[in-house]
């Protein structure tokens, strides 16, 4: 048996398997192949092979672009967008376009070539989150930017081309479609019910309990009732007013606890799958919208999309989110 479930924010539908729900071992396993450390441009000693760093976490007494670092943020060598240029759109008949202006940076998360992000120490993990924060604050100063996207691709089938642990930051001259969809969806919901849809969602999750993976005082991670991907997991701050860029170090430590534990569980439960995560934070240089609530979405890459999904936008989810959450809760 299956059911169609409607996402209350974006309005899109997922098709969820209620019976014959797939177990973790029913998904095809993916092997991660590591290239040799010698050819890796993200390893210490290869600093000159990347563009010069824009931010870092370094040992005391070390200098930018030398080898004594814990985290380095560098411009992407093959950027999707370029920093120079105007952002005025122009038209050609039915078509509209603008210069591909933006920033594309890489966060090299550790000097250790083979270290898995889920196995970072809490301090190492926190260092990375702090760089997400400081880069967002810095990029916001460029008034041409409307959004800062922070995301991570792990494993070849999730789109990673380099094995050495890293995430990416792309600053965009517009608010991307899915975030705009969430902003609009949250505002519509707010207009109708005078409450935040994300707060209502975590309240329903807290009542029903069955889809929660981990939680502490500040954050909750759960497999959403309307997931698009099997084992999709969200991390949402419990305090509606908390902005990502304004999190104190204590709150970031609290996030580290839930975030790292969730990733470790995904790693052990699904045998180190490829995955993506992305932060849906509030846009930058943008009028404050009280109805929005930032969060993190983690999507393991376990199946391949078919023409049905591409063509319709319906997503087929093979594991009921409540079963997925149970497997994840039981994993270490």
């Amino acid at each position, binding site marked *: 048996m299956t059911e169609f479930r409607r996402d209350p924010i974006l*309005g899109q539908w997922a098709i969820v398997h209620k019976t014959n729900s797939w177990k973790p071992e029913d998904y095809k396993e993916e092997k991660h192949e590591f290239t040799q450390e010698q050819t890796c441009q993200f390893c210490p000693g290869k600093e000159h092979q990347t563009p010069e760093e824009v931010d870092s976490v370094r040992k005391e007494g070390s200098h930018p672009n030398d080898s004594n670092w814990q985290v380095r943020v560098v411009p992407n060598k093959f950027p999707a967008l*370029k920093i120079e240029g105007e952002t005025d759109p122009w038209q050609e008949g039915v078509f509209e376009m603008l210069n591909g202006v933006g920033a594309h940076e890489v966060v090299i998360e550790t000097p250790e070539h083979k270290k898995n992000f889920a196995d970072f120490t809490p301090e190492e993990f926190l260092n990375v989150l702090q760089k997400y924060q400081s880069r967002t604050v810095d990029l916001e100063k460029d008034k041409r930017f409307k959004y800062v*996207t922070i995301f*991570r691709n792990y494993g070849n089938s999730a789109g990673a081309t380099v094995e050495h642990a890293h995430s990416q930051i792309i600053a965009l001259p517009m608010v*991307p479609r899915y975030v705009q969809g969430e902003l609009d969806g949250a505002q519509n919901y707010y207009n109708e019910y005078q409450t935040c849809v994300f707060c209502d969602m975590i309240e329903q999750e807290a009542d029903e309990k069955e889809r929660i993976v981990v939680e502490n005082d500040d954050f909750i991670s759960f497999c959403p009732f309307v997931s698009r991907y099997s084992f999709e997991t969200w991390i949402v701050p419990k305090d509606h007013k908390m902005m990502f860029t304004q999190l104190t170090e204590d709150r970031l430590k609290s996030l580290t606890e839930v975030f790292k534990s969730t990733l470790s569980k995904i790693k052990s439960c699904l045998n180190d799958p490829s995955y993506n995560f992305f932060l849906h934070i509030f846009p930058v240089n943008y009028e404050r919208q009280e109805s929005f609530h930032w969060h993190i979405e983690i*999507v393991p890459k376990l199946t391949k999309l078919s023409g049905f999904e591409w063509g319709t936008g319906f997503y087929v989810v093979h594991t009921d989110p409540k079963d997925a959450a149970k497997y994840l809760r039981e994993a270490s």
Partner: protein
Amino acid sequence: MPQLRKDPVTERWVIIATERARRPGNFVKRDENLNDDSASDCKFCNSTETAILNGHTKVISHAGSFLSTDQKYSHKGKGLYDVVSGFGTHEVVIETSEHVANMADFSIEQIKYVLEAYKVRMIELQKNKLFQYIVAYKNYGESAGGRNIAHARSHIIATPIQPARVAEMFHGAKKYHREHGKCIYCDLIKQEKEKNERVVFETDHFIAIAPFAARFLFEITILPKEHHADFTGNIEGKEGDLALMLKTMLMKFKVGLDDPAYNYVIHTAPLRHDREGEKWKTIKDDYHWHIELMPKLTQVAGFEKGTGFYINSIPPENTAQYLKEVDIS
């Protein structure tokens, strides 16, 4: 300079980033074992299921599908969420009795039979008033979501809900029509023909274009030149011509792109039944049915999944030119 391009119908932005093309590739590995299995144990060669339609093709009901008419249609609320039972149909079109994997290797005649099967089944399914949408699509190759069976087939699914991507196109087209009094797809065809940069191939009734804001490398849109909202209402008598179009484009993929996995999807207008109201009345003027043809060459990464932006490293003008020159004779 990279460019941001907006799809005129769905208003989705795409980044055309030529710099990325220099990056060490993250290309999908070819489905090497796609042609390994033999005809003797192929479930489609030896299909014993009752045929819904039988002839040059065989249409069967997909037994283990995520949708079935055995479930009663129901719509209820669960707190924040709307829940509809998994009611629907899923049919499999076994496209040929021969053990052939890729439609590109069919005769034009055989592709025509497949299109006729879509037409006949869709006309039948649209009589059921519980259905809001019918989609016909194909997955060729494992990386395009197909199972590893080397026997060509495609799928027809009818759902009680209008899918999000269809709603997007349908709203975009409606908006344009309200503002300009014309069909956006007709205007787009006119503009592409004049400019002639992204047109890959034309037949009497159809045109294949590399879309201006292509999400995927070598993505193609096939449109009927004559305005029509519905596949079933338009295809009669043109099946052979569309078969020639499909055969040509699929051969160009096979020869020019080294037999890639691919998907195609037929996008037709939502079913109106006898619904009244402005929204339903104008569909036949707003909407223009078409086919999306997408080779699976790269992986979709976190940026795309998180933002809805697609990064495409080769401009569609270049992919169109390349495909145009692929010699399939």
